[in-house]
């Protein structure tokens, strides 16, 4: 059973923990991931959790990746099976040659049915029951104890564990000792009984300095603070809730006048998503920067208001943290299934601006960008994040801020501007850029106008005249199209050798796509890759498609929604585009992408 040095897999493997939710497993897993991160080795964390508070199976994947890949590996090399209910599934999922660690307080001989893996039993419950008196501690510490056992197997740095626990429980020093004791239980047992079993090892590196581990909802909430949002309205919905939680947290930290206790912000928990949408429309109409975080079901409910904001030209920032649909779907599983919903949300002819962040870092930037774009173009702007980006901790470069940033408040007339004008007309395109000027209530009698979602002419007056109506909606279409080059530009990765094969993808697919491309490149298969970051698509997307014979469009939904937009919006030849679709609800892994690309390329070659 002993693993010699040559056999070792250093800093390149995946750990998965199967557990029961509500038992404190999340903090144990966060600790485990932080230890490796602090050892200077890049990590990827994926929480695959149920829509439930306590008692259902939950998993956490930690990929240790010296090369800094950002997607899932598709393999499980060390399975910590803490949940008898999912033993069978966990056992089956373990990759050949892997290790399964389980609590053998209650031995499970059927684990021995696979000869291609190593099973390790650690009597976690027995040890914790002996060491701790309080029932709740026994449950919580069992999780900390497996962190200790894993630390022993992987050669994790005990000093770092010690430091981390002191930081985590700085305000509750008693808990430090308790946790250290639990770590020692698992660690010592594994060292004593399984000293040479694991060929998976973590060796310290210096690859994480200047990096942070953050989730995209936190960075988006922080981005709203930095972007100058003063108002937020929302209705609680998984998985967007933590975005507002972050906004609240940082507003409390940064936006309360210490002397008076007065808030430079207002956050309203609305009665439903319809009201949340109405509130941010009211606040934006009245000149406050604002936003609402939600998920697909919320967008469905907000759609009537979205059309109103589009037609009445009111800035609106929506974060859609996508989860699987349709209907309630799987609320805690990820997808990119709202692309087309958001692109044309609401009845009538509507088209919206969409931003596609690929990681928490872009969530921060795009939060600020969305606030600017919404006011510049006086229209709804959607930031389409997802559960994977929004709720998982990603290793990203430390966020930076340009102190010279000035918000783009768009075209708002001041009383001084109005004084120089003969008459103000709300929907008149005086600059020829398709964007009319607006005025804020309360500033000047000359700026008064009536905002309506009913038919209006370019002067802002009610109309049922076809020509007058068309004039306004035609301008709206041009205004939307003119945003294409003002959005974050697509990012292109050129292959090492010229190729006529291309990939277009977006958002959280990025890590898996980049890695699959790497692996294929090593096998001599070359693909250029463009990641789109905004809709309407820029000219570069059209050019990219034109420059390739076939383009694989990789996305996380069943109906090829991005591909559909490419066909309808930029007239991309349908037969050039090959959909690669992943919609199981789990974050994309590179093996899936590599296999799909290889098979598709092969099939086309032999066709």
């Amino acid at each position, binding site marked *: 059973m002993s693993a010699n040095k040559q056999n070792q897999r250093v800093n390149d493997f995946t750990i998965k923990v199967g557990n029961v939710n509500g038992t404190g497993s999340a903090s144990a897993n966060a600790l485990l991931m932080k230890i490796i991160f602090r050892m200077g080795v890049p990590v990827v964390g994926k929480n695959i959790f149920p829509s439930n508070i306590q008692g259902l199976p939950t998993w956490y994947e930690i990929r240790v990746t010296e090369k800094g890949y950002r997607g899932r590996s598709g393999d499980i090399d060390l399975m910590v099976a803490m949940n008898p209910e999912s033993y069978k599934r966990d056992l089956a999922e373990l990759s050949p040659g892997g290790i399964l660690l389980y609590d053998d307080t209650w031995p499970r001989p059927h684990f021995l049915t696979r000869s291609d893996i190593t099973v390790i039993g650690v009597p976690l419950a027995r040890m914790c029951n002996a060491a701790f008196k309080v029932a709740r501690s026994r449950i919580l510490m069992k999780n900390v104890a497996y962190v200790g056992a894993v630390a022993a197997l992987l050669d994790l740095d005990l000093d770092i564990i010690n430091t981390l626990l002191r930081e985590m429980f700085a305000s509750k020093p008693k808990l430090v000792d308790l946790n250290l004791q639990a770590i020692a239980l698992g660690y010592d047992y594994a060292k004593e009984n399984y000293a040479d079993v694991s060929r998976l090892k973590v060796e310290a590196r210096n690859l994480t300095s200047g990096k942070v581990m953050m989730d995209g909802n936190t960075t988006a909430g*922080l981005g709203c603070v930095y972007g100058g949002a003063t108002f937020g309205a929302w209705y609680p919905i998984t998985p967007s809730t933590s975005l507002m939680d972050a906004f609240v947290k940082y507003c409390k930290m940064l936006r309360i006048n210490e002397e008076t206790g007065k808030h430079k912000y*207002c956050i309203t928990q609305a009665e439903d998503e319809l009201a949340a*949408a*109405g509130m941010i429309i009211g606040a934006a109409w009245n000149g406050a920067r604002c936003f609402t975080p939600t998920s697909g079901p919320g967008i469905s409910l907000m759609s009537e208001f979205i059309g109103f904001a589009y037609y009445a030209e009111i800035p609106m920032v929506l974060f859609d943290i996508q989860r699987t649909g349709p209907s309630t779907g799987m609320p805690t599983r990820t997808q990119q299934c709202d692309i087309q919903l958001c692109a044309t949300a609401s009845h009538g002819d509507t088209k919206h601006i969409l931003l596609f962040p690929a990681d928490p870092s872009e969530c921060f930037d795009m939060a600020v960008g969305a606030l600017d774009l919404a006011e510049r173009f006086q229209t709804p702007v959607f930031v389409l994040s997802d559960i994977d980006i929004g709720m998982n901790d990603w290793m990203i470069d430390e966020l930076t801020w340009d102190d010279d940033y000035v918000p783009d408040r768009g075209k708002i007339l001041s009383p001084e501007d109005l004084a120089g004008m003969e008459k103000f007309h709300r929907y008149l395109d005086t600059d020829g850029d398709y964007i009319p000027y607006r005025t804020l209530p309360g500033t000047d009698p000359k700026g008064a106008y009536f905002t309506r979602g009913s038919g209006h002419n370019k002067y802002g007056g009610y109309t049922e005249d076809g020509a007058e109506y068309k004039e306004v909606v035609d301008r709206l279409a041009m205004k939307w199209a003119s945003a294409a080059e003002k959005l974050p530009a697509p990012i292109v990765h050129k292959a090492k050798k010229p190729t006529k094969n291309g990939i277009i993808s977006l958002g959280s697919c990025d890590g898996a796509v980049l890695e699959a491309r790497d692996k294929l490149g090593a096998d001599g298969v070359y693909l250029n890759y463009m990641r789109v970051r905004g809709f309407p698509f820029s000219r570069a997307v059209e050019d990219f498609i034109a420059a390739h014979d076939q383009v694989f469009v990789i996305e996380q939904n069943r109906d090829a929604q991005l591909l559909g937009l490419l066909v309808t919006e930029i007239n991309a030849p349908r037969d050039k585009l090959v959909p690669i679709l992943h919609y199981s609800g789990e974050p994309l892994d590179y093996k899936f992408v590599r296999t799909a690309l290889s098979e598709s390329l092969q099939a086309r070659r032999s066709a």
Partner: protein
Amino acid sequence: MTSFTKPIIRRKNEPTNELGLVRADYDGAMSTLCAGCGHDAVTASMARAFFELSIEPHRAVKVSGIGCSSKTTAYFLRESHGINTVHGRMPSVATGAIAANHELTYIGVSGDGDSLSIGLGQFVHAMRRNVNMLYMLENNGVYGLTKGQFSAAADMGSTAKKGAINELPPIDPVALALSVGATFVARGFSGDREQLVPLIKAGLKHKGFGLIDVISPCVSFNDHKGSTKSYEHTYKYYNPAVHADYVPPSKQIKAAYDAGDVMPIELHDGGQITLRKLENGYDPRDRAAAVHKLFESGQSQEIVTGLLYINEDHKDMHEMARMDDRPLNAIPYSELNPGAAKLKEIQKSFR
């Protein structure tokens, strides 16, 4: 046809308010409602109230939903911003607008269809939040724009124009408001301007959510025999129980009422609402009494009107949210941006 501009006619020796403006300066576009519609009378009363309070038109904001009543925001205060939102959703837009700038005077205009069916949720929650606005509910018991369906305010036994009898119990906005924490609850009648104008003035000056449920008959679809929201029926059972007047801070000393008849209520702006009780023993600061009075009068079909409940002590949304004294939309970005150094510091906890 689309919309009409109302001609601005200046008359000699017209009375002016403290701003030097005349009543016509508070007009809007020409109404496109049916001749004799109760709503037009309410529109005139609203314009008059703003005129008499000497509110600068551009410091007022009009919000509405969808329906005949909601159209009326275009028919007064042409120099105010107005927003005609989507059906039943005016309260949320008003809530956001007021959060962004609490310094303006907000008036919402809605109807019984807009507020009591599709918009019931938002209506109730705006009251719970005590959003600082006056909410005019022009109540005619019927859907006008879609030609005569019963609304949720239609009384049991009331008949439709073609004879159908309503068998569902009505939602009484006043009873509803009392139960969810509105802090100024009144009922008026489009046909009694003497009562309505002072009520509107008091409601505009009240800090917090003010509701005036205004019986406003629909001449086209609900003014027939058998309807309990017709002019005839309303006049017959009309009982103006409590008369309210708004007295501005500067006029207070001059106001002289007989002590026994008048109940003064201090407002946050230093002004007063003076209540002339038309019935002995009724105290509109007593919510339980208001509820009792309402249900008691309902049994005799009596339409009890006036300021039925007021509570000046409850915090409004702005106060509950501990918001800055300045409007959110007026706080300079330099005060909102924590800066690069702070961002670095924040991220220490993510290493």
